[in-house]
């Protein structure tokens, strides 16, 4: 038998690829011929050797591969220069946990801060009530008005909806009125004086943060005043100062009296005072004056659960607000806020009648 054929037979015998007949024949041959038997044993051993050699090569290859990979990711260091890529990978691997922690800490802090801001922010819907008039009240009033004095033609354009209302007062004899921003929910407004005369007005500047707004009367019927009876104070008022206010919680002007009870507003808001006064929806935007006839603030909100506790935006803010408005609109440059009051020592009834001319009922409307 040829050596190659013999080898082929041995290999297929060892791999178990022979059919039973061939196998029986081959086993008989093995028994008969010791040389062939020896060859089979030898070849078997050699094949095992080959197998482990192959496995050895494979594991060596894997080890080499893993080693290279770990050097590249920076898990292993073997001296020499570290390439920038490796450095970056290494830095990332080293700091990714720190980065993740920092990011989540940042996120948590952001959430906590926004939570705290929401919690402590001074204007709180439930506890504070803005004193703008309810639309329903205005509606009812309009109906009453309409039925009582049919002959008076309103200047409120037809096809508009009155959305809010309140009070406002002149800060410049030429027809500039200050009121609360929350009074002006609509796009335009008319103002009504204490004698029932209506004038068209436009919103010229509004700041929801300070809760202040400036209206300008644009009406030929309006006759500018010579001067305003009151001044608008720049310094802080004192605790216990007696104060009074005029406003339009109804269609008639209403007088209220009280005292300054705290130098800060709701939850320590330093932009406003706390005052003890009876205030109702519609009083928003009305002036708060002291005995000298000096405006010390703009009545803006009241505390919902407490009786008689109201808040007024400090008059100093009016000055700041107007200065700010002038910067953005040169048309406002000619606003001159009176600082000196000329009602010192005047009897209260006299004061009221002079101030009342300058306090307006503000009705804001928007297109339906």
């Amino acid at each position, binding site marked *: 038998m040829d050596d190659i054929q013999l*080898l*082929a037979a041995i290999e297929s015998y060892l791999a178990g690829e022979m059919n039973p007949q061939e196998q029986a024949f081959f086993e008989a041959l093995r028994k008969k011929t010791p040389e062939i038997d020896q060859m089979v044993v030898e070849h078997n051993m050699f094949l095992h050797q080959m197998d*482990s050699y192959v496995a*050895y090569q494979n*594991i060596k290859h894997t080890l*080499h591969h893993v080693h290279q990979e770990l050097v590249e990711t920076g898990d*292993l260091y073997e001296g020499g220069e570290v390439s920038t890529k490796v450095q970056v990978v290494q830095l990332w691997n080293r700091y990714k946990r720190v980065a993740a922690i920092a990011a989540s800490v940042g996120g948590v802090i952001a959430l906590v801060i926004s939570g705290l801001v929401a919690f402590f922010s001074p204007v709180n819907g439930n506890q504070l009530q803005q004193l703008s008039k309810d639309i329903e009240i205005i509606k009812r009033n309009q109906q009453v008005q309409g039925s009582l004095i049919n002959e008076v033609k309103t200047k409120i354009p037809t096809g508009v909806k009155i959305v809010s209302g309140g009070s406002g007062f002149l800060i410049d004899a030429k027809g500039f009125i200050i009121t609360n921003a929350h009074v002006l929910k609509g796009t335009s407004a008319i103002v009504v004086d204490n004698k029932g005369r209506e004038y068209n007005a436009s919103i010229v500047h509004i700041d929801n943060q300070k809760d202040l707004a400036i209206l300008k009367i644009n009406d030929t019927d309006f006759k500018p005043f010579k001067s305003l009876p009151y001044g608008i104070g720049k310094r802080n008022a004192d605790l216990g100062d007696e104060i009074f206010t005029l406003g339009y919680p109804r269609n008639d002007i209403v007088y209220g009296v009280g005292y300054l009870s705290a130098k800060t507003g709701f939850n320590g808001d330093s932009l406003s005072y706390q005052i003890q006064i009876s205030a109702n929806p519609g009083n928003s935007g009305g002036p708060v004056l002291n005995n000298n006839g000096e405006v010390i603030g703009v009545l803006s909100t009241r505390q919902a659960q407490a009786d008689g506790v109201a808040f007024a935006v400090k008059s100093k803010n009016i000055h700041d607000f107007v200065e700010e408005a002038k910067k953005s609109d040169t048309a406002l440059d000619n606003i001159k806020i009176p600082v000196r009051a000329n009602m010192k020592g005047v009897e209260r009834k006299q004061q009221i009648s002079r101030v009342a001319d300058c306090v307006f009922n503000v009705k804001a409307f928007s297109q339906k």
Partner: protein
Amino acid sequence: MKAEQNEQALLKGLANNDSKAIETIYKDNFNMVQAFVLNNNGSYDDARDIFQEAMIALYEKAQSESFVLTCQIKTYVYSICRRLWLKKLQQMGRFSNQIDNLDETVPVEEDLEIHEKRNAEFAIMDRAMKSLGEPCKSLLEGYYVKKMGMQELAEEFGYTNADNAKNQKYKCLMRLKKLFFSQYNIGE
């Protein structure tokens, strides 16, 4: 208990040449071995060679069915590396008797003896393969290492048919056997 199962799983992975398991063992142990070799007159390359040698020894051990590792992988790898490195230092005449690490070790002399015998066998096979010459070497590698079929091999090497390729393969195999056994028997 958990750690033990973990180690068993890693060894099983190693035995199956699973690169994930090998990577884990590598990460857990390489730095320790590297520090040891570097602290004892070795280079980065020495550390790599020694560590890979130890990994192969562990691989051989993990392959036998009856294998049970009686200590942590770390201890075993460290013991092998320490032994191997001491031996290498002695061979190079650099042994300074100052191996300073006195970490826990386990006796590994027997394992190393088996490992060295195997290494010698592989070296013989390696040499035999290399002196075989082309195309025999590639043909045998294709069949035994890459496990390619006869038809595939015939196409790749340009034999007219699979039978011719098979014939050639047997001729090569006979030569390889001759080369291997001549060396092997001298080695004995």
